[in-house]
């Protein structure tokens, strides 16, 4: 079923395209040798090149090009062996040169595709129009002084990949899934850390609305949205605003807008009011960027297994549901943890433990899978004790909690606390006899047909055995005695 918004004039379809700016992981900037680390003191990671001083010239960082090509390959995209840097001319406080060096006519990466998974288990192919390399701008601080804005150029010149999607997305959910999937791919490739809080992944969201079956209407670009949740909220807010404009008899103006998460609304960006005329032209300080096909092939051969391939493998190799597989491959660290846990064990049970009790524990303790409170090996040890019937499932949960607290192995805990389950029939017979003797009345009721009391007897026997009775044996003995 397709997402639609009900307006006073009927249903509206939402058309969404995303421009994601992903900061390339590199030691130094795209065109200068200044460092790229986050949170350094103001203007301490700035060279004269980054500050646009007279006579300064850009020199391309090869690692940034390599990372962009690997990303293109990871998006199943066409790699352009010949590309070019252009200047995008506009004046802004944190744009030192008065132009941004970007790629306009000849981007390094052409069309590709990203597959997104939706909650209902369905998948969609979203077109990628292009990926190009460009330099980031500096940062303006507007809240430090009543009359002035402060400029920090540490970020100016840091390498970005702008990844542009086709207007193929049709709902906030799809847009959210697209960003999450793209982020996952970038993190698998190690080309961007995907940290949206620190701004290393930012989305410009292009939104328009239309009546089903119509062509495209005017779109607005909501700039620099910095979380998946805000992307989804911004789309909904902007779509509703546009529907009101259209239904109010007005027309939507193409413009750049900002999303205000507190108010949950978008507003026009006054600083960008000036009519845009970027006067792109090839940067005469730089030469054509020419790549060797052989080098590109080497990069392709060296790519890691990416989320889609891993997910497919998990489904076939471990017999997981598409949903569980998607959950387990989203983060590479989770997938690695899972494979260590599942190897040589009941893969489904491993998935259930990991996505169930283990994830719950991570949330509760505020840990991430990168610093696990219990290692995959240790958790495997616990599953082994269940598998060889040393403990039953109920005791296992108790042992897991103890492992989280003490950090000891499952086996050690089971021995220390004497939690091995009892399989000796003598002990079970005795417990059963005692329970039946103590509940003669219930036995009579049961025999007169109140079968559901059977569960009560099982519970009493297990209780008498401190939970350590082998559930199957207890059942057999009781059934025999109550015939």
């Amino acid at each position, binding site marked *: 079923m397709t997402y639609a918004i009900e307006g006073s004039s009927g249903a509206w379809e939402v058309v969404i395209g995303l421009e994601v700016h992903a900061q390339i992981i590199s030691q130094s900037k795209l065109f200068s040798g*200044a460092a790229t680390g986050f949170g350094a003191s103001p203007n*301490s990671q700035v060279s*004269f*090149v980054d500050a646009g001083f007279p006579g300064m010239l850009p020199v391309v960082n090869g690692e940034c090009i390599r990372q962009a090509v690997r990303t293109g390959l990871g998006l199943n995209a066409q790699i352009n062996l010949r590309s070019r840097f252009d200047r995008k001319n506009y004046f802004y406080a944190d744009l030192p040169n008065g132009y941004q060096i970007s790629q306009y006519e000849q981007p390094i990466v052409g069309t590709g595709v990203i597959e997104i998974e939706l909650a209902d288990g369905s998948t969609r192919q979203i077109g990628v129009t292009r990926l190009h390399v460009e330099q980031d701008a500096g940062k303006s601080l507007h809240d430090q002084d009543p009359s002035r804005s402060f400029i920090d150029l540490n970020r100016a010149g840091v390498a970005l990949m702008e990844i542009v999607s086709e207007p193929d997305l049709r709902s906030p959910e799809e847009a959210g899934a697209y960003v999450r999937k793209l982020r996952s791919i970038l993190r698998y490739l190690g080309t961007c850390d995907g940290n949206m809080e620190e701004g290393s992944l930012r989305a410009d969201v292009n939104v328009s609305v239309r009546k089903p079956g119509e062509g495209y209407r005017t779109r607005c670009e909501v700039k620099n949205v910095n979380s998946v949740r805000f992307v989804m909220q911004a789309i909904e807010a902007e779509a509703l605003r546009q529907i009101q404009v259209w239904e109010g008899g007005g027309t939507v103006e193409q413009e750049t807008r900002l999303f205000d998460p507190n108010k949950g609304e978008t507003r026009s960006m006054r600083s960008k009011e000036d009519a845009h005329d970027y006067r792109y032209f090839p940067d005469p300080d730089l030469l054509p960027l020419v790549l060797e096909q052989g080098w590109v092939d080497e990069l392709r051969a060296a790519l890691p297994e990416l989320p889609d391939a891993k997910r497919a493998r998990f489904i076939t190799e471990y017999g997981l549901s598409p949903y569980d597989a998607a959950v387990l491959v989203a983060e590479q660290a989770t997938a690695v943890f899972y494979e260590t846990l599942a190897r040589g064990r009941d893969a489904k049970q491993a998935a259930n433990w990991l996505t169930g009790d283990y994830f719950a524990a991570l949330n509760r303790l505020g840990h991430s899978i990168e610093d696990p409170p219990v290692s995959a090996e240790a958790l495997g040890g616990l599953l082994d004790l269940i598998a060889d019937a040393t403990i039953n499932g109920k005791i296992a949960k108790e042992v897991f909690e103890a492992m989280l607290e003490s950090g000891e192995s499952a086996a050690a805990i089971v021995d220390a606390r004497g939690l091995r389950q009892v399989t000796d029939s003598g002990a079970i017979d005795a417990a059963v006899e005692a329970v039946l003797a103590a509940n003669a009345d219930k036995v009579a009721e049961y025999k007169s047909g109140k079968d559901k009391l059977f569960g009560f007897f099982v519970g009493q026997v297990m209780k008498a055995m401190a939970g350590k009775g082998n559930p199957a044996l207890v059942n057999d003995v009781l059934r025999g005695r109550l015939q």
Partner: protein
Amino acid sequence: MSLDPATVRRIARLARIRLDDGQVEQIGAELNSILGWIEQLNEVNVDGVTPMAGGTHGMAQRLRADLVTDGGIAEQVLANAPDREGAFYTVPKVVE
């Protein structure tokens, strides 16, 4: 193509250069004569010609190693600033 005063003002705005009305008149006239003179290029047949991009030809972009070799000179990058606050450059407040 000929520039009317409105176009001259639009271009000056794009270039962030303030012109008084006198300059708009004078420079507008000068730009028009230059643009008129440039029109001679329309005689040239450029069909199928690959435009030159930059001053070099047959050369390709060299790539730099990814090393931190610069920065850490905040005082030097700020030393020429007409106005600064601590380690920041400053401009009149920008309203987004």
